[in-house]
């Protein structure tokens, strides 16, 4: 097993989010969910990060920032779009300055729906991202080209109402993971 899945360091960028998803991302780090027990650390530094969490949609002003953070991250890396705004623009989709979801600027590996995305759903998204991270690492070792993001992505652009559904199953997954740790 690649060690990259045992210590995924996260860099979190707030696009033009309403802060709802940001607070949920931070809630994952709090004692209640404590993602550090899986080795997940919120680094503020893209150069140390493996997982790029983006909340909020991408607009004309921050598209370069998102792209630059993505480019500064060393391979293997995954991008997780957190919240419906990051997935596809959400209620801001038709605003004149909004480009849409994060995937309009950088390849996204995992979509976490919800408004705001629940902490369980975010953790589930990151855990799914870890599988992709592992595949990318193996591709790196084998010298093959990294698997294109579109093929691997679960692409579950579900509406916000379904956000509670993945939470049920993730609770169990978290327990299992917690037991391992």
């Amino acid at each position, binding site marked *: 097993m690649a*060690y990259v899945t*045992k*210590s995924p360091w996260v860099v979190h960028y707030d696009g033009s989010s309403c802060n709802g998803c940001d607070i949920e991302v931070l809630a994952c780090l709090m004692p209640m969910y404590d993602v550090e*027990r899986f080795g997940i650390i919120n680094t503020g*530094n893209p150069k140390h990060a493996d997982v790029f969490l983006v909340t909020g949609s991408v607009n004309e002003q921050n598209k370069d920032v998102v792209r630059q953070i993505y480019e500064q991250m*060393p*391979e293997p890396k995954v991008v997780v779009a957190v919240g419906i705004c990051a997935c596809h623009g959400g209620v801001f989709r038709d605003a004149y300055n909004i480009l849409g979801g994060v995937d309009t600027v950088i390849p996204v590996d995992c979509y976490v729906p919800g408004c705001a995305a629940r902490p369980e759903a975010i953790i589930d998204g990151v855990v799914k991202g870890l599988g992709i991270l592992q595949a990318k*690492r193996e591709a790196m070792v084998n010298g093959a080209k990294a698997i294109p993001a579109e093929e691997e992505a679960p692409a579950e652009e579900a509406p916000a109402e379904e956000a509670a559904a993945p939470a049920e199953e993730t609770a169990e997954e978290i327990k299992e993971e917690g037991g391992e740790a």
Partner: protein
Amino acid sequence: MVIKVISVIAYLVLAPIVGCILAGLDRKVSAKMQRRVGPPILQPYYDVRKLFEKEKMAPTRYQDFYIIAYLVFLIGAGAIFFAGGDLLLVIFTETIGAAFLVIAAYSSNSPYAEVGAERELLQMMAYEPMMLLTAVGFYMFHGSFTVDDLVKPDTMAFLPMIGLFIGFIYILTIKFRKSPFDLSMSHHAHQELVRGVTTEFVGRTMGWIEVSHWYENIFLLGFIFLFFCNGTVWGCVIGALVCIAAYFLEVFIDNSFARMKWQFAFKSAWIVAIVLGMVNIFILQLVF
């Protein structure tokens, strides 16, 4: 001679293992203090293994050289210490190693790393006098700078050198990069200056820095051990226990205090060195 070789090899092999476990316990205990579950004990090992799996990426190709030099000098300092060499030589070798880390940070040309490097230099100025005074204190008390002589004396140096001991614990907070004084590089991510001196180090390079921290922490704890050596087994047991207690005292301090400005770190470290260190040395001069 054989014993020296064995102890150096033991240091080279065991120091990263013990250092890694101590770092893991540090994170676990910190998590418990914050009422979290915390990562597995071996998490620092997983982190380093992961860093070695990452893509190579560097703003300048010389920085790897500087970081390897940092690692080599720190291992060298520890090796001299555990071979029973000169305490002053240990301190100077360790300082050269620290200087290489500063150069590496400067070479990256990143504003965060540069500010971190400047603060690292200030920290070196802050802790260096106390480290030297500790070595001087050992010389005053035992009449030798050589670690070989310091591990088998007749009397325990702890009580006569208690001022130097407290002063050394004080600067250990700076050396371990614990909270009131983690100005140049915080172990906790997403805090000061992005990641301070290590901002631009990616993957493998960052992994080497973590490994050198493990080596460094072990031989710094070795200094504390020297305070308790009195030639008997009990001295060694007390020394080892105090080393562990000192480490977790630093973890406790880390979790209890907010970060101070560099002015405070600098002034307080020098005041501690002058008041506790110098007074203790005067007493050693007058009494012993």
